[in-house]
C-alpha cells in the first residue's frame, strides 16, 4: 500500500516528537513538557492513520480506541501514587499484547513475506506475548492479588524447555510460511504460557527490574512489528524504547548488585547460615524520637516501601518542615531500588511537595551519614542492612546500601519485627545506636509531629 504524503509526514512528525519528548523527560525541569510533546506526537500519528484512504472497519476502530483509551485514562487518573508501579506494568503488558496481536493477524492473512520480515514478525510476537502475560503477573503480584512467589520443581528446566518449544514453533512458522492456523495457535499459546511461568517465581523485591525489562521487551516487539508493517514511526519509537529500557534495566540491576540473569533464574536464598546477629532490638517512644530529632543539627530520612504502603509521605514532609523551622538540617536519602520501582520514593515525596533538591541519591549522600545526628528510617529495610557489606553468606551481600548505621543515632519506624522483602534479618536493628519505633508510618509520623509542636 502506498501511503499519501500527509500520512507519512504526520508519522515522521510523530516519531520526531517522541524523541524530543523523551529527551525532555530526561531532566526534571523539562520533564513535564516532555511528556506533553510526546503526547502531541501520539495524537498526530493516530489522527493521520484515520486519514489513510481505503481502510475498513473504521467504526470498529473508533470504538476500540474509545473503549481502551477511556478505560485506561480513567484508571490512570484514579490510581494512587503508591500503586503506580503495577499500573505501569499493566499498561506495558497491553502494548506487548497489541504487538503480539498485530503479528497474529499478519500470520493469519498468510501474505507472502521476505524471510527477514517473517523472522522479525515471529520474534516480535514471541517477546510481545511474553511481555503481555508476564506484565499481568507482575501487576497481580504488586497489587497483592498473587501473594506468593510460585516456584515449580525444576523451574529453570521448565523455563528452558518452554522457551525452546516456543522458538521451535516459531522456527517452523518461518520455514512453513504461510503457517497453518493450528501452528499459529500453538505458537501463541506456548509464548503466553512462557511469560506466565517465567514471571511467577520472581519475588516482589525484584519486580522493578522485571517491569523495566518487560518495558524494553514491548519496545522491541513494537519495533519489529513496525518493520513488518513497513512503518518507520513504529520502528523508531519501539527501538528507542527498547534500547532505553534495556539500559534502564541494567542500571537498576546494577543498583541491586544482581545480574539480570540472576533475577530471572535464581531464587533469593541465603547461601549459608549467615553470621550470627548479637544484641537485641530496643524500643523507643514517639516522644523520645521527636526530642532526638528536634535537638539534632542534621537528620537524614531514609524512606522505603513501608512509607508508601502507609501513605505517610505527607506527614513525613510536614514533620520535615517543622524540624527545618527549628533549624535542623534535613535531607532525604533514596536508595535506587527503594520501593517497588526505581525512583518510586522520589515520586511519592514529590507528591507530598518535597522539593527535589532535598532528595539525594546513594552516592551523593552516603558520605554524610557519619556527620548526621539521626538517621530516620521509615519502612525501609534491606537497603540499609549492613550485612550487605559484611556477611558473605547473605543473599543481599554486595548490594550497595545506604550507610545509615554510621549515623550517631538510628531510629527505625517499622510495622513489626519481621524481615524485609528479601526475608533477611537486618543486623542494623540490633546495633547499640539503633532504636525501634513500632507502628504504621502515618500515625507514627503524626505522633512525632504532635510532640514536635508541643516542644515549640
Amino acid at each position, binding site marked *: *500500500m502506498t501511503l499519501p504524503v500527509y500520512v507519512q509526514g504526520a508519522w515522521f512528525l510523530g516519531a520526531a516528537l517522541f*524523541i524530543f519528548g*523523551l529527551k525532555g*523527560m530526561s531532566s526534571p525541569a523539562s520533564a*513535564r513538557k516532555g*511528556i506533553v510533546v510526546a503526547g502531541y506526537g*501520539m495524537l498526530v500519528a*493516530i489522527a493521520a*492513520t484515520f486519514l*489513510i484512504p481505503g*481502510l475498513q*472497519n473504521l467504526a*470498529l*476502530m473508533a470504538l*476500540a*480506541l474509545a*473503549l*481502551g*483509551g477511556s478505560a*485506561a*485514562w480513567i*484508571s*490512570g487518573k484514579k490510581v494512587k501514587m503508591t500503586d*503506580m508501579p503495577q*499500573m*505501569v506494568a499493566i*499498561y*506495558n503488558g*497491553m*502494548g506487548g*499484547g*497489541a504487538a503480539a*496481536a*498485530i503479528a497474529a493477524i499478519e500470520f*493469519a*492473512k498468510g501474505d507472502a513475506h*521476505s524471510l527477514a520480515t517473517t523472522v522479525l514478525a515471529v520474534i516480535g510476537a514471541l517477546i510481545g506475548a511474553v511481555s503481555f502475560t508476564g506484565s499481568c503477573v507482575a501487576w497481580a503480584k504488586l497489587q497483592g492479588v498473587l501473594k506468593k512467589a510460585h516456584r515449580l520443581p525444576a523451574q529453570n528446566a521448565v523455563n528452558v524447555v518452554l522457551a525452546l518449544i516456543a522458538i521451535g514453533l516459531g522456527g517452523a512458522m518461518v520455514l512453513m510460511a504461510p503457517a497453518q492456523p493450528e501452528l499459529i495457535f500453538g505458537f501463541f499459546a506456548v509464548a503466553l504460557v512462557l511469560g506466565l511461568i517465567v514471571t511467577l517465581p520472581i519475588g516482589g523485591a525484584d519486580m522493578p527490574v522485571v517491569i*523495566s525489562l518487560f*518495558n524494553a521487551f*514491548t519496545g522491541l516487539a513494537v519495533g519489529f512489528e513496525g*518493520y513488518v508493517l513497513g*512503518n518507520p514511526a513504529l520502528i*523508531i519509537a*519501539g*527501538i*528507542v*524504547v527498547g*534500547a*532505553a529500557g534495556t539500559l*534502564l534495566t541494567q542500571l537498576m540491576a546494577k543498583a541491586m548488585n544482581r545480574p539480570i540473569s540472576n533475577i530471572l533464574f535464581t531464587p533469593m536464598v541465603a547461601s549459608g547460615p549467615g553470621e550470627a546477629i548479637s544484641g537485641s532490638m530496643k524500643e523507643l517512644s514517639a516522644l523520645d524520637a521527636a526530642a532526638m530529632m528536634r535537638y539534632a543539627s542534621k537528620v537524614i530520612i531514609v524512606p522505603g516501601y513501608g512509607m508508601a504502603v502507609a501513605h505517610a509521605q505527607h506527614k513525613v514532609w510536614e514533620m520535615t518542615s517543622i524540624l527545618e523551622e527549628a533549624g535542623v538540617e534535613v535531607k532525604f536519602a*533514596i536508595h535506587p531500588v527503594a520501593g517497588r*520501582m526505581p*525512583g518510586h520514593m*522520589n*515520586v511519592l515525596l*514529590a507528591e507530598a511537595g518535597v*522539593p*527535589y*533538591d532535598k532528595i539525594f*541519591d546513594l552516592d551523593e549522600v552516603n558520605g554524610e551519614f557519619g556527620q548526621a545526628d539521626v538517621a530516620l528510617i521509615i519502612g525501609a529495610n534491606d537497603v540499609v542492612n549492613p550485612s550487605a557489606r559484611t556477611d558473605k553468606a547473605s543473599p543481599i551481600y554486595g548490594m550497595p546500601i545506604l550507610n545509615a548505621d554510621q549515623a550517631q543515632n538510628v531510629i527505625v519506624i517499622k510495622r513489626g519485627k519481621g524481615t524485609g522483602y528479601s526475608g533477611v534479618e537486618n543486623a542494623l536493628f540490633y546495633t547499640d545506636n539503633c532504636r525501634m519505633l513500632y507502628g504504621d508510618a502515618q500515625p507514627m509520623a503524626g505522633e512525632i509531629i504532635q510532640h514536635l509542636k508541643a516542644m515549640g
Partner: protein
Amino acid sequence: MDGLLALYIFMLAAFTGYEIIAKVPVILHTPLMSGSNFIHGVVVVGAMLMLGTADTPVQQAIGFFAVALGAANAAGGYVVTERMLAMFKKKEG
C-alpha cells in the same frame, strides 16, 4: 521496506535511546520508564492498520483487541506519566 535501510534505522534508534537515558538522574527513573512505556503505545497505529485491512471476522476480532490494548497502553501511559511529572517542582509554590 528496504531491508538495509531498516537496519540503519534500527541502529540509529537504538543509539538514540541509549544516549537519551544514559545521563538521567535516578529520581526520573520511574517517570521515564512510564514515559517510554507511553511512547511504545504508538503500537496502536500498527493495530489500526491491521484492523483496517482485516478480512475475516477472526482477524477483525483480534484487530479490535489489538487496537483497544494499544489505545489503553497509550492513554494510560500518558496519564500516569503526566501525573507523576506534574509533581516535580523545585520549590514549594
